[in-house]
């Protein structure tokens, strides 16, 4: 009887293990497919042409060009621009929720903010398209509001819940001891926050920001709908841009499967994958260090 039970246990554990490995396999497969297809592009496009070339024109008659620099810049503009908006707004909200708000208010505001994360990106893109972009065009006297600025604002809204949620978790998880000691020395609450909590929670907050960065880099639908989709090199935030994600989405349905154009899109996908992987990895390491620091 005992042996039977033990055997059973072993089988069950192996079953669960195999299932868990699927998640790992998926990630590896994604990378493999991107790599296998994308790398073929580099047999015909030189690395410097790809990364430093400023003109992306794969369908040009005669001399197609494969420079994704303007696309990379588009992605970076959205990433940085949206963070510039979302970080101060997000941190301030997190501090409010964690340290200032009364519990009853917190119970309402926190879920409300988390609900923003539940709004599909395509709906936010729609609002950007129909409401925000004409507004921006009006305010700044532009002929079109489909530009980097509008994209940054919409993506900032999407990234906000991530930053707020994680930063707030970081702050509330800091031990009570610091707060008491600080207040007992006659610090005001703000002094306590500024001089004790924020420095102590800094790495966690940085991790939150990095996760937000990852989301901003990977955002597809919203930028597809409001960023303007011009492959020309932008000169300001009022110019239309085409981030890498939007580029893939736009062109993938029109390419011939297996062509160089097709492969080059996978190469862009590879670049995106590596970027978001790196950002997530870094934020992982930071969070782990933060957790270890306070587990005494």
């Amino acid at each position, binding site marked *: 009887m005992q042996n039977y039970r033990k055997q059973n246990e072993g089988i069950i554990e192996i079953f669960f293990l195999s299932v868990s490995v699927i998640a790992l396999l998926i990630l590896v497969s994604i990378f493999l497919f991107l790599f296998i297809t994308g790398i073929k592009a580099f047999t015909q496009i030189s690395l410097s042409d790809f990364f430093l070339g400023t003109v992306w024109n794969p369908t040009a008659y005669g001399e197609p060009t494969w420079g994704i620099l303007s696309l990379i810049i588009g992605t970076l503009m959205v990433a940085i621009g949206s963070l510039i908006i979302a970080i101060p707004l997000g941190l301030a909200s997190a501090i409010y929720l964690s340290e200032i708000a009364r519990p009853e208010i917190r119970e309402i505001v926190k879920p409300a903010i988390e609900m923003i994360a539940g709004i599909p990106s395509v709906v936010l893109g729609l609002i950007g398209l129909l409401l925000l972009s004409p507004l921006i065009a009006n305010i700044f006297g532009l002929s079109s509001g489909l530009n980097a600025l509008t994209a940054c604002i919409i993506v900032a809204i999407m990234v906000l819940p991530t930053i707020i949620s994680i930063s707030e978790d970081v702050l509330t998880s800091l*031990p009570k*001891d*610091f707060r*008491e*000691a*600080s*207040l*007992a*020395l*006659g*610090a*005001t609450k703000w*002094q306590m926050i500024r*001089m*004790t909590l924020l*420095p*102590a929670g800094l790495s966690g907050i940085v991790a939150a920001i990095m996760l937000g960065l990852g989301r901003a880099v990977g955002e597809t639908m919203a930028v597809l709908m409001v960023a303007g989709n011009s492959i020309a090199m932008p000169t300001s935030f009022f110019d239309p841009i085409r981030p890498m994600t939007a580029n893939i989405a736009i062109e993938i349905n029109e390419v011939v499967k297996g062509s160089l154009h097709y492969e080059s899109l996978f190469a862009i996908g590879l670049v995106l994958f590596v970027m978001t992987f790196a950002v997530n990895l870094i934020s992982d390491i930071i969070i782990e260090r933060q957790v270890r*620091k306070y587990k*005494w």
Partner: protein
Amino acid sequence: MQEQDIKIEFKDMNFWYSERQILMDINMKIYPKKITALIGPSGCGKSTLLRCINRMNDLISISKVGGKIIYDDKDIYEKDVDVIDLRKKIGMVFQKPNPFPMSIFDNVAYGLRIQNMTDKNKINQIVKESLEKADLWEEVKDRLNISAFRLSGGQQQRLCIARALAINPDVILLDEPCSALDPLATAKIESLLKKLKDERTIIIVTHNMHQAKRISDYTCYLLNGKVIEYSGTAEMFDNPKNKLTKDYINGEFG
């Protein structure tokens, strides 16, 4: 008891957590430049009483105070009292050492920096003096920049005392400061407290009657939120007037 200046006076003080009453009709005078010990069994309210003095209980939303605590000729619970300012004059050291995640130097300087002191020389001087008064200077003077967490428990607690001393408080409250420490570390802190009382008033909560007997000038015995007996320490331990006090003391010694 001699008639002398009074530093802090409790007048008909009552305290509740929501509906539960913790302290009842506390009437007591704390004398300046003396060590007053609050003793009593677990749950008698001595820590709560201590935390009322620097209004740390304000941080708990369900706390309610009745009566007065008079310090500097003013009831500290009056509406126009600046709590922040109060805490700069009445400092506190906690049961579990709670240094900030910063260097030793920054820990001690913290209190000065929140008062916007920027004179580096002055800060250095005060940090040194505070660490000396806390009997820690010799042990850390060559490594002021290391993290406070690298100190031993006893050293961390002395660091917390130095930190409290740096802003030169008039009164220092200590909430069972030695309960997490070994006898040697405890002895060090007891001797430095005896030196500190020359310049300031000290109120210490302790569950250790021997400690109260060793270092305090006045002792207050609390039971179930009431002051049972309050007198000079020698008097209380040699000749307790209240039967309850006698029982408590003998329970320990006997």
